[in-house]
């Protein structure tokens, strides 16, 4: 049993929640020279809204002009491109096409293009039907028209967030998992009661995602918004199907959702989703057989060749939407408290921008640190199907997961790394083990042995 953490230390910043936003926040403040502590309720980072998304780096071309969301996406997009090489993060420059499938959608295209230009995404340009079909020859010929968004790219949603938090940790930040914030009070300094004891901090930043309003209520007694979880289900097709589309295929969006997207993943698959289903539960990311079949059908309608390929996996994610249309980022300067709420489906793209935005609010409130001169860059997870992988260099100790070509060396590196996974989900996100077409048929057994004593729950208990 490790000793309880020293409760006498006063951290500069406590960040509540280690989703992609919390991870980016931790990185920003650590690099700005703050003593950072990240508290995560779950056993793993990225266990809530950041667990499942469409893994696209958006330009924000369709965000409401003038919104905080638009600004954060634009800033986040820019910073991602600036830092990704130093952090070893992959990028696949696919571009996207927004396509109209009927006359009503066709009529909206010019409005959307104008909006994109207003948002500073200047390279968005109309395409004729013929141009679309030349660039994407596998699309259904029923497409009516569309426009191209050249700057929409594919990224690794987990490796990027891991890189943010690992860089924060490599530069002095601390992460506590299984550590839920229960209550707290502010008397010049924040004193938080957590499931792992007391924590003191000068400043609190609530990045609790699906629990953003709950944390506000626990610490402030009230919240300016209510989280309305919105579920999105996805169907992922086997890798050979990825040749059917080059660009991300976006529909004409509605008020509540970007609609059903066909997108390749940086891991080499092609996927269809998400749905947008409002629900009460903040935890239940169930899939429904009929919905999944309908998604597959919709995918085949747009990209008929998908019918010939098998499904690799299905999943659902929860987005922390609120009753408001914009992100809910607010500062209570008198209490040294910032809420970062309602970072919905665009959070992956916006996370670095959100962190910048919050750091700006903080500086204006008089907080300042000494930015690190030479921040350390940690070793990233290298899982992109389009870039060199571990199995391609000698001495990997054998391939454990054959579908995703995950090596023993990679798994051991994750298990013995600076932020070892504590659950199978966490190991999967770090290595892609069990995430391929056989979904664990071949590798579960050897993996149970390799991870013995390291995961909770264990893959299997030793037979006595």
């Amino acid at each position: 049993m490790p000793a309880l953490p020293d409760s006498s230390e006063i951290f500069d910043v406590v960040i509540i929640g280690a989703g992609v936003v919390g991870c980016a926040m931790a990185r920003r403040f650590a690099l700005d020279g703050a003593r950072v502590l990240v508290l995560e309720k779950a056993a793993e980072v990225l266990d809530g809204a950041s667990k499942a998304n469409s893994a696209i780096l958006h330009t924000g071309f369709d965000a409401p002009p003038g919104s905080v969301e638009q600004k954060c996406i634009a800033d986040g997009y820019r910073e991602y491109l600036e830092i990704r090489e130093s952090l070893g993060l992959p990028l696949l420059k696919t571009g996207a096409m927004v396509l109209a499938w009927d006359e009503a959608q066709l009529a909206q295209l010019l409005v959307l293009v104008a909006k994109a230009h207003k948002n500073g995404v200047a390279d968005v340009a109309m395409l004729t039907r013929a141009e679309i079909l030349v660039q994407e020859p596998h699309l259904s010929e029923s497409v009516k028209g569309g426009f191209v968004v050249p700057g929409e790219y594919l990224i690794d949603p987990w490796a990027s967030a891991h890189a943010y938090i690992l860089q924060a940790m490599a530069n002095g930040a601390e992460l506590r998992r299984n550590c839920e914030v229960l209550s707290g009070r502010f008397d010049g300094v924040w004193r938080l009661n957590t499931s792992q004891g007391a924590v003191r901090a000068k400043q609190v930043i609530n990045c609790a995602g699906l629990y953003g309003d709950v944390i506000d209520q626990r610490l402030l007694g009230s919240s300016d918004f209510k989280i309305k979880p919105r579920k999105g289900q996805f169907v992922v097709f086997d890798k050979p199907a990825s040749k059917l589309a080059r660009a991300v295929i976006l529909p004409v969006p509605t008020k509540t959702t970007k609609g059903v997207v066909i997108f390749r993943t940086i891991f080499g698959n092609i996927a269809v989703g998400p749905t947008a289903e409002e629900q009460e539960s903040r935890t239940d990311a169930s899939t429904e057989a009929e919905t999944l079949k309908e998604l597959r059908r919709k995918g085949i309608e747009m990209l008929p060749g998908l019918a010939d390929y098998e499904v690799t996996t299905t999943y659902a994610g929860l987005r922390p939407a609120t009753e408001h249309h914009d992100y809910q980022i607010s500062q209570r300067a008198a209490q040294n408290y910032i809420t970062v709420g309602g970072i919905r489906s665009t959070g992956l793209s916006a996370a670095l921008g959100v962190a910048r935005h919050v750091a700006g609010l903080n500086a204006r409130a008089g907080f300042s640190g000494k930015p690190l001169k030479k921040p350390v860059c940690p070793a990233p997870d290298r899982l992109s199907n389009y870039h060199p992988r571990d199995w391609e260099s000698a001495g990997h100790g054998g391939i454990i997961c054959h579908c995703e070509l995950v090596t023993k060396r990679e798994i051991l590196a994750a298990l013995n790394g600076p932020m070892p996974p504590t659950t199978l989900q966490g190991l999967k996100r770090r290595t892609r083990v069990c995430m391929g077409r056989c979904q664990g048929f071949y590798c579960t057994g050897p993996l149970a042995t390799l991870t013995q004593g390291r995961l909770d729950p264990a893959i299997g208990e030793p037979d006595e």
Partner: protein
Amino acid sequence: MNSLSCNIAIVGGGTAGLALATELKRLGVEGVTVLERAPEAGGVPRHCGHYPFGLREFKRLFKGPDYARKLVKNARVAGVDIRTDTTVTRLHPNARLSLNTPEGDYELQAQRVVLCTGVRESSRAQRFIGGQRPMGVLATGALQSMVFLNQKRPFRRPVILGTELVSFSAIMTCRHMGMRPQAMLEANSRVTVRQIMRPFPALKGVPIRFNAQNIRIIGDKTVKAVEYGDATGQRHRIEADGVIISGQFRPESALLHASHLAVDAGTGGPSIDQYGRASDPSYFCTGNLLRPVETSSWCWHEAVETAGRIVQDLAAPIGGAESIALCAADPAIKFALPQRLVKSEAPGAMKQMQLRLAQPASGYLSAISGGQTLWGDFIESRPERRILAPLSPLLKPTLTAPVEMRFLGR
């Protein structure tokens, strides 16, 4: 990149690959190499810790792991070069392979390649089983690998989905480590595997729920329950801590799909001719990769026959420029194998085609080419049963139109 060469490269060291390699050696072929990606050869039988294996081929009853050891031993004694921890990452035209090993990458040039990559069970996702995504949802193969190769127990009270032969193997595997299956769920109104209609001792105490529809898995971190609807639409809930997703085998054809070789949508395996050759004639295919799913014994015999054809082909290449397609042209027929008929005659060709149904059907099953009925017989069968039909009536040099298999008067 290091270059290697051999005469015959066999991809996959399971029943088919090892039987084929051993037979090739027996027939005097030099330079036979088996490429196995796992740390040990033997394939699926390695983790089938139960009877019955080997009765037809070795005239003795083995448990799976002993059978696998016997296959490996026979191959080694015969002089087969078995390379374990060796993953084929790419198939290239003209019998060239890219290999990956813990020590590095290789290119292997062979005279002929034989694909023997076998089958696996369909995953939860492939069956669109809804609900949450807790741990403890495993294929039978994964369960067996945990139990028999890694001595690990993933759960104690699983629900088994399916009533195929392998579903009953799952019960035996559970019993081996004191796990108590709570129920079997079957989408149809009857048990899939016929043999099990005999009293089955292991089944005692495991109820079968028929007409189970819209199965959902409940549980956040670990499985808590399985829910399903019955024929009347009423929902039921079974408390459980695991789910075994059994059966619905499909060829392990990832390499094929990423290659230059033609794939058959019906079988999910390679498109082959009556000599077992893929669309690139330097590639032969045998065993369960050809179709889901036959017993180990069937695959063993299939592989031994394939070895004979390869020896023929090495001595005097089998022609193949001219061929006609053989196809399932009826919604009730899932596949017909082989998918192509080469017109040039050579010894050793398959005598029979294999068919499976997509749904229970009866009628006059016919082979028709350009309006001409070449063969027919009355068939009443079900999807899980193998149907064999003679190939010889179809091998007429004058045929030009594809041979279509369909039911007349169904």
